[in-house]
């Protein structure tokens, strides 16, 4: 418990690059939200309660005078289905922690701090407080980005011109590299990539993320049982 604060600070530091991308991405959302007539309070309520970038983009896109509450909820459910998998993948990190700890920590899990934590865990030094510190920092960056966009208004009318839309892709590409575990990943990644591309082509929305992730995981399950697989991936440092 004594390590709570330093771990949070370490998590926040490790999230500086992804937070920069989230802020850029957030400012784009803020501009769109301003066009749809959201107030800064609506925006902050959404940032705080939902805290999931892609879902927020879709919600703002669906925004109107009479909110399509049911469709919106369903859309958010589909887009965020990947969080079921993300949550499941955090199980080794949370091993031995109580229910309250889990409940308190999980809200601020986003793609960014999750990915940073997973790559940190590969070197064996991630903790739940590291994850949480990253989440808090990301929340601040995300919120300020959205507010800058919302209040500053149309200063970036064409974000594509500055490749701002590619910031998200680039930062997650860099993070994916950190999750590469070597030869054993070749097959799962090829299967995942193929599934993602196929589903992306034929199904709308964000199904491709879930489909690719599941396909990759299943292919790893079906793979030949190499005895090399004894490496303890869940080597969570004890404290």
């Amino acid at each position: 418990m004594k390590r709570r604060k330093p771990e949070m600070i370490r998590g926040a530091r490790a999230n500086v690059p992804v937070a920069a991308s989230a802020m850029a991405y957030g400012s784009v959302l803020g501009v769109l939200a301003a066009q749809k007539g959201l107030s800064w309070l609506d925006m902050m309520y959404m940032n705080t309660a939902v805290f999931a970038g892609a879902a927020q983009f879709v919600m703002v896109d669906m925004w109107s005078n009479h909110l399509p509450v049911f469709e919106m909820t369903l859309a958010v459910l589909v887009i965020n289905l990947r969080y079921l998998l993300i949550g499941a993948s955090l199980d080794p990190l949370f091993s031995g922690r109580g229910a309250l700890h889990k409940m308190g920590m999980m809200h601020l899990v986003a793609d960014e701090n999750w990915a940073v934590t997973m790559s940190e865990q590969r070197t064996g030094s991630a903790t739940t407080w590291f994850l949480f510190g990253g989440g808090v920092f990301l929340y601040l960056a995300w919120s300020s980005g959205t507010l800058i966009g919302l209040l500053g208004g149309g200063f970036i009318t064409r974000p594509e011109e500055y490749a701002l839309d590619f910031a998200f892709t680039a930062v997650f590409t860099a993070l994916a590299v950190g999750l590469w575990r070597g030869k054993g990943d070749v097959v799962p990644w090829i299967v995942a990539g193929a599934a993602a591309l196929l589903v992306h082509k034929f199904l709308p929305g964000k199904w491709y993320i879930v489909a690719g992730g599941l396909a990759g995981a299943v292919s790893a399950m079906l793979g030949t049982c190499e005895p090399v697989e004894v490496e303890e991936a869940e080597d969570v440092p004890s404290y």
Partner: protein
Amino acid sequence: MFPAIEPQVLIAVGLAAGVTYSLRLGGLLLASRFPRSGRFRRGMDALPGALLFSLVLPSIVAEGVWGLMAAALTAIVVLRTRNTLAAMLCGMLVIFAVRKMG
């Protein structure tokens, strides 16, 4: 001036939040009931990488050859320098330049 939140916004965002949080926590709580070794565990260990790769690949491919170049450069920079921010900026720079020219 302090804006008010309309009831319909309160409900819509509240539901979205409830769904999202349930998925986050639900995944974690379900996983603690999963087997900790064997085939299933192997799949779960492969999941993060597969998921992240699936997240980015379609948007890389959508940018065409230059998207692949930008992603490759991003990967090389992060492997060499371990600096995610620099890697991100290099990738963006490629796309920025291509769009400026094109």
